[in-house]
């Protein structure tokens, strides 16, 4: 059994055990403890702070706080356990007020984006690896620029002298090389756009002489490279974009949660 698989099973087992114990404790103590909601609230807040500390840990790489992989595992399983705590704190009942409703929605969005991020981080790297090549995300614009220059030199440069290829490039490929294209098809693993371009290149081949055909081969290779670059761009962008939802909403959630604590105690006296 691989280390990752062993970690996975241990994590799932601990998560199920902790969740079961929490629900049992809920059934046991909820009717008996008058301030039960306060306790579940504090435990939930502690879990949320633990989850938020993962981001702080990433900002402080120089401190000996354990490796990031361990923190990520804790973040994932504690995140799922926090969902159980959240439901227990709500007493398995949907909140109805504006404030508490917003708070619950924020929690749901943060959790949902986290789960989506977990899913993406498990699926997309595998897809990137199977596509071949390794591209650093920050270098994609430079690589795209280089490909464009190479393509333009090949089709529009003085050495080529092929009006058909030049016209074809201007008409069909200049926009393709200008920036990232086919985001959603790449994300959905569709090769239809690339096949369409390949078909157009193949159609053009019939009208070219031998030397032009050699140029067209080079151009087709650049098109495939650009498509691969777009594929990396689409998937790597997605891998990074989910954090644009998860992180800002986490801060918003923490602010709402702190205010929730203030309101609960300010209006306490009969609160259950």
């Amino acid at each position: 059994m691989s280390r990752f698989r062993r970690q996975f099973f241990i994590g799932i087992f601990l998560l199920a055990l902790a969740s079961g114990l929490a629900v049992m404790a809920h059934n046991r103590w909820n009717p008996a403890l008058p301030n039960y909601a306060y306790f579940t609230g504090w435990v939930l807040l502690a879990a949320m702070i633990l989850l938020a500390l993962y981001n702080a840990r990433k900002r402080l790489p120089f401190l000996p706080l354990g490796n990031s992989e361990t923190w990520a595992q804790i973040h994932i399983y504690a995140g799922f356990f926090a969902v159980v705590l959240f439901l227990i704190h709500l007493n398995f009942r949907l909140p109805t007020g504006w404030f508490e409703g917003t708070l619950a929605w924020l929690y749901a969005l943060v959790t949902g984006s986290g789960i989506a991020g977990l899913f993406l981080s498990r699926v997309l790297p595998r897809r990137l690896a199977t596509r071949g090549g390794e591209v650093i995300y920050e270098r994609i614009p430079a690589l795209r620029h280089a490909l464009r220059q190479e393509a333009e030199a090949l089709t529009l440069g003085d050495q080529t002298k092929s009006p058909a290829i030049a016209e074809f490039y201007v008409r069909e490929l200049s926009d393709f090389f200008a920036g990232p294209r086919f985001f959603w098809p790449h994300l959905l693993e569709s090769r239809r756009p690339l096949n369409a371009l390949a078909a157009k290149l193949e159609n053009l081949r019939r009208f070219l002489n031998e030397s032009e055909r050699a140029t067209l081969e080079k151009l087709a290779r650049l098109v495939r490279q650009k498509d691969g670059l777009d594929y990396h761009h689409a998937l790597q962008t997605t891998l990074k974009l989910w954090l644009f939802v998860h992180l800002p909403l986490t801060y918003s959630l923490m602010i709402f949660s702190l205010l929730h604590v203030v309101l609960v105690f300010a209006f306490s006296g009969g609160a259950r």
Partner: protein
Amino acid sequence: MSENLPAPDFDSQRYERPNQAWICGHAAEGSPCRSGPDNCGRCRATAECVPGLEKPAGESKGRWRCTRPGGACETGPLPDGSCCRPISKCSPVPTLRTRRGQLTRAVVTATVALLLICLGGSWRGNFINPGELSTPHSSAAFAKLHTGTNQSDSTCAACHKAGALGPNGLLSAAWRAKPGPFEVIQLAHTRPGEMTAIDEACQKCHPGHLLHQPNVVRDISCSFCHQEHRGAGPIAATTDAQCALCHGDGVSMAAAAATGASLQPKNGTTTDSRPAAGFTQVLHRFAEDHPEFRVHTDKRRDPDTLRFNHARHLTGEAMPMLPNGQKLECASCHQPNATGISFRRINFEQHCQVCHSLQFDPETPGLTLPHGDPSFVSAFLRSLPRQYADFAARSGLTTEADRKQFAQEKLQRLQARVASGEDFEERVFFSSATTGPEVQVGSVRGPSPALYPGCAYCHAVKSGAHGKAEITNPVLIERWLTHGEFNHARHVSVACTQCHAAATSKETADVILPGKSSCAACHSPQGGVVDSCTTCHTYHKKARPLR
């Protein structure tokens, strides 16, 4: 189609730094400048080098030398000492990390702004309200009663002191809360149902907290049972768990029993409507350990003196049909009241007279004795000539002579049946016989019908001062189970006799209420009908004496 992409050529001098906030605007063209943008995103590009001034000993002017990394340029610095190869300025681009930070800051700012607006504005009450209030506490009457208690003119402060406070006040109130946010031990040690600050607000309008039983050993917080902000309509129903806080706890019940035993009977309520120790049996579910109804355990008897035989009325073979041709049944007499919850009071005129006519003269069916007051009956009997004459007038005899003759004939026939007027009056009041002396008609011999089955046939009649008949007023008890509610309207699908043993009850004293087992047949987990405490009981109800 898989094809190798351009391999990343690692340059130790120019590797990517994802943590940096800005990247050079020329990076997308593959030619970022070496200096790069500053932390604020400003381009720092100037020239390819900063020429150095070489001033050999003895020279005053010196000479500018190119310091370009990778080798000096061909033309060298300009005469003024500036580089001859300026770098074009760029528009630095924020990295994803920086953009994420910007978005995060924007969201945080928007969140804080939203909260400040919502908490400081007139809609604060609505915003922080955790749920819709119950109808009584959200009514116009409640708002009128507590108007102006809050800055936002809502009624939060009618119950919550913090409702009238601003943001700073809320913080202060949270910090001063008892138990406070960090008083975890006190939070853990709070007993269920402890009185809280909010109970003071409840009791402003609902004074008199102890509306339950006099032997309750401690006050229970209003909000323990009545949880607000659970939506419109009546306030959220009390659950069995809340009742079981005391009634399911042996220690609490023992203490309540001890308290109840020491209570002095007061106004008859403690002796009549509740046992001496109070209702202190530990119970959890109706079908399991709820005690049998006290009306049965105490073997209570109906104190009514009116003689009534349910069995005869329901199953008697000689029971005549009603004038409408229908058989006598429960609903003939027990007619539901306007709400359907209970029944209209039985009275002679509506429910008995149709069969039990007060006809005293067998030959004059239309003339009946008055009902209700023995003195009226006496007066009626002592003015029989006048009563017969009036009856004649009502029957259509118009002349005085005819009426007088009619009355005289009736009186003569009546007098032939009785010994005297006193004898007749005594028979009217005290006789309970339904048959007269035996007579023989042809070959058949048997009892004759009674002249009149007297008042004593139904009523308890005794002889008072000067021989005056005194009739004990009937005592019709409307409710036997005074500590529980019962809604007959919700049980119309069940036959009366399924719960009430009327078909076998022959004595007035029989209390034909169903026992607990009859109710538990349906009101139990097995029966599938709700069996919560509040189905029958109401906490805030004073014990009602029997009536």
